[in-house]
């Protein structure tokens, strides 16, 4: 390398380091939206990725099908045993739904936090370097996708929309290590639900961390965790996972729990983007939000902060 350390080269190296620092500084701050060159590049790459991903998904699905066929018999046995259970459950669900409708009519509540519209999208890429856990999908602003919407698979919540461009968007998975990656969640305990936060991924034990559970709460292993809808953007009742471990936190004031996610974060082919239809909390739910919101006020997060401005106060 005879050409390496001449004066001119050193100056170019310096300038490019300055450009690097500038670019990182520019993109590190919380950006509302990505710039238009980024959008343009993402959209045009997205089209090619979409074209490429179709046959790949097909081929991968074909091999998956073969694997499935080998397990058909055992699966059939298991499903048969579940079938009776299913019949009684669906009858119960029907009657509960009707009862719910009549009760809702009685108190004139026509919208609830559980209402949402769903859009389906195909996964076109996944961030290959794995420093961040994000996937790209082929729906964007033109299809009505907005920042921070919930993204689910058939099994449960997988993440939220991080950035959007016209025809593609990026989904930040729940397993992403970023500190702003938080979801307001609730634990079904049989009595009143317990509210807490999903805060990132535990690398060693491989599960989601559910933090800030009140110490008098009755949280045990095996209970299910769902979105609470108090964050303002997610609807209520999207499945997140199941609690596998409960332990006091480092200060002994609250509890932490390890949650095994219901959805598979790997090998995702199709996702649904969830848009909540009701804007504000109403009636009883609002009181619950105020109760649960106390500790949220102490540690404001970008996401929760702006939501509570329009949704949390009576």
């Amino acid at each position: 390398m005879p050409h390496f350390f001449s004066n001119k080269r050193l100056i170019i190296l310096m300038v490019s380091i300055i450009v690097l620092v500038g670019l990182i500084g520019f993109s590190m701050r919380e950006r509302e939206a990505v710039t238009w060159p980024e959008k343009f590049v993402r959209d045009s790459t997205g089209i090619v990725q979409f074209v490429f991903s179709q046959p790949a998904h097909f081929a991968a699905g074909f091999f998956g099908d073969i694997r499935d066929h080998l397990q058909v018999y055992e699966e059939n046995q298991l499903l048969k045993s579940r079938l009776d259970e299913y019949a009684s459950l669906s009858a119960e669900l029907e009657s509960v739904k009707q009862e719910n409708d009549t009760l809702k009519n009685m108190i004139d509540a026509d919208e609830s936090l559980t209402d949402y519209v769903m859009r389906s999208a195909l996964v076109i890429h996944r961030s290959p370097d794995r420093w961040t856990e994000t996937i790209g999908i082929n729906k964007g602003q033109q299809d009505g996708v907005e920042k921070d919407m919930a993204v689910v698979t058939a099994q449960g919540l997988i993440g939220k929309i991080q950035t959007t461009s016209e025809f593609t968007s990026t989904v930040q998975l729940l397993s992403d290590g970023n500190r702003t990656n938080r979801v307001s969640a609730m634990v079904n305990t049989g009595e009143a639900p317990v509210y807490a936060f999903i805060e990132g991924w535990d690398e060693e034990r491989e599960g989601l961390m559910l933090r800030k559970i009140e110490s008098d709460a009755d949280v045990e292993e095996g209970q299910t965790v769902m979105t609470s809808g108090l964050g303002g953007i997610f609807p209520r009742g999207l499945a997140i996972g199941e609690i596998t471990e409960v332990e006091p936190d480092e200060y002994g004031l609250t509890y932490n729990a390890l949650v095994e996610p219901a959805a598979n974060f790997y090998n995702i082919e199709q996702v649904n983007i969830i848009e909540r239809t009701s804007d504000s909390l109403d009636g009883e739910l609002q009181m619950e939000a105020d109760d649960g919101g106390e500790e949220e006020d102490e540690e404001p997060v970008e996401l929760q902060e702006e939501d509570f401005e329009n949704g949390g106060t009576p």
Partner: protein
Amino acid sequence: MIRFLLPIVVFALFILEGTWFQIFVPPSQDYNYILVPRFVLIAVVLISIFRGPGIGVLYGIAGGLLYDFVYTDLLGIYMFSLGFTAYISSFTYTAVRISYMWQMVIIIGSILIFEWMTYGLYYVVDYTDILFEDFFMVRLLPSWILNGCAAILLLYPFQKLFRRLEDYEALQQR
């Protein structure tokens, strides 16, 4: 037509990294290492060996910028690392150009520099907090093996492509 072949090949490798590789080799929790395909890096290193540092750095910066735009929210890291790696791996000697052995050594070295650099930059901006030993075992070793194998497969077709490009340019100059 052949002039556009090189950018198209690099772009195809880029799509391969993010879409095909992720579908056919889906990441999983079951094993304790992370496979990161760096096919664009291999192509960029070969370009700077055979086409000179100028064109190599150009491809490095373009490919890195594309990577930054599409896959990460953080701009600049891949643009800088890929451009820098392209520059310092531009050994344009004839001895290197005719020997697969030397090319492999340079590619392995450039993977080390590139991975180390991106890890360092991500560590500095606080996107990751894994230690160097973990980085070495979980990321660098698997990356060497995977991308080394990919490089063995890519060396011959790329050499063929560069030879045809040179023939074409010689024809143009006449």
